[in-house]
């Protein structure tokens, strides 16, 4: 029985399981916040993390602790503009994991994005990175691995800043990308323009970085194959040491995407898929401060936008693929999810 429980709990990362390295984003956030004059006791209050442990390195923390740290930063440093962007940018170079070096030695943009996709959890374990591409663009879409609530703006922007910095390390200069941010346009945009570039669309349905293909000609890149292999093996070795299974929310996303066509996406079916009872799943979701309906809506809106925009399917086909019997119902749901109508996403 106990081994069965252990097996089941290893299927996903619990909200309070200390499995993430308190490094990179975490330590840079602490460093930068201290530089802005906040007291370390206040900064780390309620996180159950000690400053001395961070200095000695190698500590692990849970998603819960990450989120509490961001809450503390938002509470005490609410008047510092662009802190999350600075942290995102500089944390890339302060990772002890040699991801920045590995990306800078990639030979093509395709390889660089593939590498980032493979090891993105080293940068920030609170988000999922989905890479979608077509003939013209790469779409780096970010979704929440854990419910971030009021910390989500901070985490999304810092991750986008990290991605932008990583790709600039690959390209040698800032790669001109387009950013879609879910937050509304802030009062002070200087930091966003400085760190992400001028092409930013606010109040978007998702947080996405769009990178045009062929930005960097492979002949212009001078890379070392030996260095690349060495950094790759170092990253893989670290990846093996750190257990980073998907989160509960990611599992539910996967379940919804697999099953929404057959309209078999009830809470009971999902609980069965995760080998949990209905009440246990509800309890776990409430611990994550999220509802099943919210995850369902996010998965379906994501899938519908992908089908409408990238796969260029009709509204009828998309509605059918998502298990809607009626086009009007789909339109109504789509508007509720994205505040837009399906035709806005047609090319």
């Amino acid at each position, binding site marked *: 029985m106990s081994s069965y429980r252990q097996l089941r709990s290893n299927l996903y990362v619990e909200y309070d399981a200390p499995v993430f390295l308190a490094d990179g984003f975490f330590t840079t956030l602490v460093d930068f916040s201290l*530089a802005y004059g906040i007291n370390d006791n206040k900064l780390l209050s309620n996180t159950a993390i000690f400053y001395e442990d961070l200095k000695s390195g190698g500590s692990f923390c849970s998603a819960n602790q990450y989120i509490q740290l961001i809450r503390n930063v938002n509470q005490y440093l609410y008047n510092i503009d662009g802190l999350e962007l600075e942290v995102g940018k500089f944390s890339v*170079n302060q990772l002890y994991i040699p991801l920045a070096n590995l990306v800078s030695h990639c030979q093509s943009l395709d390889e660089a994005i593939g590498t980032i996709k493979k090891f993105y959890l080293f940068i920030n374990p609170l988000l999922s990175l989905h890479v979608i591409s077509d003939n013209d663009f790469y779409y780096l879409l970010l979704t929440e691995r854990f419910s971030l609530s009021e910390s989500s703006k901070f985490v999304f922007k810092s991750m986008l800043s990290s991605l932008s910095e990583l790709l600039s390390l690959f390209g040698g200069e800032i790669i001109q990308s387009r950013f879609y941010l879910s937050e509304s346009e802030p009062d002070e945009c200087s930091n966003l323009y*400085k760190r992400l570039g001028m092409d930013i669309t606010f109040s978007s349905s998702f947080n996405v970085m769009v990178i045009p293909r062929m930005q960097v000609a492979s002949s212009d890149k001078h890379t070392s194959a030996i260095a690349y292999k060495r950094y790759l093996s170092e990253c893989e070795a670290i990846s093996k040491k750190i257990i980073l299974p998907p989160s509960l929310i990611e599992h539910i996303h996967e379940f919804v995407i697999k099953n929404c066509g057959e309209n078999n996406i009830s809470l009971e079916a999902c609980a069965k898929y995760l080998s949990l009872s209905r009440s246990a799943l509800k309890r776990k979701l409430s611990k994550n401060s999220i509802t099943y309906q919210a995850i369902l809506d996010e998965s379906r809106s994501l899938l519908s936008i992908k089908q409408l925009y990238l796969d260029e399917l009709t509204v009828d086909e998309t509605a059918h693929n998502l298990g809607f019997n009626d086009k009007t119902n789909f339109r109504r749901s789509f508007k509720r999810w994205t505040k837009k109508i399906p035709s806005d996403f047609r090319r």
Partner: protein
Amino acid sequence: MNNYLSYHRLKLILLLVLTAVLFIITSYSFEVKPAESRHMLDIIGEGGMCLCLFIWITIFLAVRPASLVTNLVYTGLLLLYLASLQDLSDEYFFINGYLTLTKAVESLPMIFGMVALTVGLFFWHREQKIFNSTIERKEKLLREPKWIDTATDLYNTNYLISQLNDLNKADVNSCVMVVDIAGYDSICNSYGLNKSLKLVRDVSKLIEIQIPHNSLICRSAGETILILLTGKSTQEANKLFGKIKDSIRDIDYFLNVDSKMQINLTFSAIDTSQIDLSLSKSELIKKLLTHNTQYQSEAV
């Protein structure tokens, strides 16, 4: 509140040692009074005073860093404490013989303590006046936090835009200089944010002393400094920047005790007449930063 007790270990040890010494000398030299001869009111009054002075000393040391004021007030309170302790001891012992030392310990520390305390309080008042003047200067900044960049205490872009609007109404031809510190990102990576922000502050001070008094200097984002030069054309701004750049490049800037660097600045200028003030705030900032990026790439 910071706790400074660990910085005053010697002072605390001295307090405890003197208390113990006084008690040992008194108990060895004099006979203990029987319980019926003791006056409870005196014990409560004098004992309470002793206890209060002990608590005062401890709290005072906990909240004060080492300084002249701390030393003087501590000395004053310590002497008052010893005098009151000696005063209390005659409630427990028959101090009939009146050793000269005992008498001296009871009478003299009181007056010396009061003198030390008075001098200490005078210096404390002077210290407070200096703090108040500093706070008054800061208060000026805190009154309008929406216009201040908290990291560097410079004005932010919101204030620049409000000034641009005012200048536009007054129909004064001016220009905006956009100044960047070359290699700022690598400095931030190598030396941390604290040193990098200090660099931005120092560079802005160096620029400030070389531009006319009616100019406005503010921080946009990262290392980007925006300067509004009232009544100047872009040609004049170019000349002015050349001088500023040369003067700052000649400085050996110490980021650490042993690592010095040369500061290189990059620059672009845009005439305010070219800025469409009907644009939204974010569009305006975008225009200024885009102009700077284009100017830099053309220069390269």
